[in-house]
C-alpha cells in the first residue's frame, strides 16, 4: 500500500513545490517508485521545477473528468527511474478537484506507487483541502517567521480535523515540520525565529532544516530538483530529510553559523 504524503503550509511562497520536488526525487533516487501530484490547479508550477513542462499533454483534471487515463497523464522523469509527475491543469480552477475524483485517482496511484507526494497549493480552501484529505503523512513547510508559523499552525489544526483519517476516526496524520530558508546568521542576530522557537510553537516532529541557499533558486530556474545538486547545502539538507522520512536517524546539519575562512572573509565568498 502506498504512502500518501502531503506537502503543505497554508502560506504561499515558503517552498512547498521545491520541497515536494526535492523529496519526491530523493525517494525515487533511493529506489522507491514515487509520483508527484500537483494540486495547484490554475497555478501549476511543479512541472517547471521538475523540468518537464514541455511534455505535459494531459493533466490531473483530465484524469478526474475521464478525458484521459492515468497512464496517459503521468509524465516519466528523464533523469531518474521510478519518478513520475502528474501535472495540474493550468486552465481550470480548484473547484475542478472533487473529493470523489481525487479519491479515485489517489486510489489508482496507490496500486502502482510506493509514495504519492501531494504538492498542496497555498491557502486552506478546496485545493489545499483536497491535497491533504487523503494523506497518511504531512510535511508542513514553514519559514522561520511569525506569519508562516501561524499559518502552519492553522494547517496542522485542519490536518487533525478535516482529513479522511480524522473523519473516519483513524490514526491521525503523521505530521512533520520542514523548516526552509533557514539562515543561522540572521537567527543569531534575532532577525529570524530559531529552530527551537518554531519547534516550541508548533510542537511537532522536525523532519529537516533547509538552509537559505542560492542553489534553490538556481535549481528551480533550471528545472532540476535541488536535491540533485549534491554540492549545495540545501541539496544535502533535503537528502538528510528524505533519509529521516524513511526512518533513518540522521543528525541535523546547517543549524549553526558557519565560520568563514580567511580567504572567504577577504574576498567575500559566495553563500
Amino acid at each position: 500500500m502506498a504512502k500518501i504524503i502531503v506537502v503543505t503550509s497554508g502560506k504561499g511562497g515558503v517552498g512547498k513545490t521545491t520541497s515536494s520536488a526535492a523529496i519526491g526525487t530523493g525517494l525515487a533516487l533511493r529506489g522507491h517508485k514515487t509520483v508527484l501530484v500537483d494540486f495547484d490547479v490554475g497555478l501549476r508550477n511543479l512541472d517547471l521545477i521538475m523540468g518537464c513542462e514541455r511534455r505535459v499533454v494531459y493533466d490531473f483534471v483530465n484524469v478526474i473528468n475521464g478525458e484521459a487515463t492515468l497512464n496517459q497523464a503521468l509524465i516519466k522523469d528523464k533523469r531518474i527511474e521510478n519518478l513520475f509527475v502528474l501535472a495540474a491543469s493550468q486552465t481550470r480552477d480548484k473547484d475542478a478537484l472533487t473529493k470523489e475524483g481525487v479519491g479515485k485517482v489517489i486510489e489508482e496511484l496507490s496500486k502502482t506507487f510506493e509514495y504519492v507526494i501531494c504538492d498542496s497549493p497555498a491557502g486552506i480552501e478546496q485545493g489545499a483541502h483536497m491535497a491533504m484529505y487523503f494523506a497518511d503523512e504531512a510535511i508542513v513547510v514553514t519559514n522561520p517567521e511569525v506569519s508562516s508559523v501561524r499559518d502552519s499552525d492553522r494547517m496542522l489544526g485542519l490536518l487533525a480535523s478535516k482529513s479522511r483519517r480524522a473523519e473516519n476516526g483513524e490514526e491521525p496524520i503523521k505530521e512533520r515540520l520542514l523548516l526552509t530558508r533557514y539562515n543561522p546568521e540572521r537567527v543569531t542576530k534575532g532577525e529570524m525565529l530559531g529552530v527551537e522557537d518554531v519547534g516550541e510553537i508548533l510542537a511537532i516532529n522536525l523532519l529537516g532544516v533547509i538552509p537559505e541557499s542560492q542553489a534553490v533558486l538556481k535549481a528551480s530556474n533550471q528545472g532540476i530538483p535541488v536535491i540533485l545538486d549534491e554540492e549545495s547545502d540545501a541539496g544535502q539538507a533535503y537528502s538528510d530529510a528524505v533519509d529521516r522520512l524513511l526512518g533513518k536517524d540522521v543528525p541535523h546539519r546547517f543549524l549553526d553559523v558557519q565560520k568563514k575562512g580567511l580567504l572567504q572573509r577577504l574576498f567575500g565568498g559566495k553563500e
Partner: protein
Amino acid sequence: MSQADLLDQDPVFQLKGSMLAITVLELAHNDLTRLDQQLAAKVAQAPGFFSNTPLVLALDKLPSGEGSLELAELMTLCRNHGLRTLAIRANREEDIAAAAALDLPVLPPSGARERIIELAPAAAPEKPKEPEFRPSRVITTPIRGGQQIYAAGGDLIVLAPVSAGAELLADGNIHVYAPLRGRALAGVKGNVSARIFCQQMGAELLSIAGHYKVAEDLRREPLWGEPVQVGLTGDVLNITRL
C-alpha cells in the same frame, strides 16, 4: 415655564411594591363564642402584641358545612381584642359578598400560594440535581490556530499546547497544562467565580464572565510566561502565580 407648570410635573406619588409581614387569623370553626374566649386567653399572654395589630381574616380554611358567618360580628370581636381587620381571604361566595358590603378588600384564597409552599418539599428532592455531575471536557491533542473548543456547562481541561489564534470557551473553569498562547474565556455564561489555570501564560486574551485582558496588557504582566491562575475580584481580573 411658570412655577405652577413645574409643580404640575412634580410627581405627587410613587407606586411601590412591598412585602409586609401581616398576622393572619385563620378560622378553623365557625364558633364565635369559643373564638372570643380563646382570643382573650391569647391577649392575656401577650397584651403588647394585640394593640391595633393589622390582621387578615382567613375564612378560606373553614370546613364546608359550617354555616354562614357573620362577618361584621367577627370583625367587631377581633376589634375588641385589638386586632384591626385589613382584608379577608375567602373563597365562599357569601363571605365575598359580605366583605363587599362592608367595603373590605378580599384577597384570593391562599390555595395558590400555599400550594407553592406545599410543592417546595416536593421540589426539594429534585434540588440536589442542580450541582449535577457535569463531566469536564478533556482535550489531549494540540489546539491549533483557528480551532475553537467550547465546554458547555462545565470545565475545559487541555493537556496540550494551545496555539495563538485558537479559542477556548467554557461555562466553568479552564485548565491548560501546557503553554497557553491563544484565547481563553471562562465563565462565558456569566459565572464570575470561574477561573483560568495555565502552566505557561502567553495568552492573546483572558476573560472571565466577560471581563477580559488582551495580550497588550498581559505582556506587561510580570507573570507573562509563568504558571498562573486567573480569577475575578469585582470587575478586575486578578492574575496570580500558581
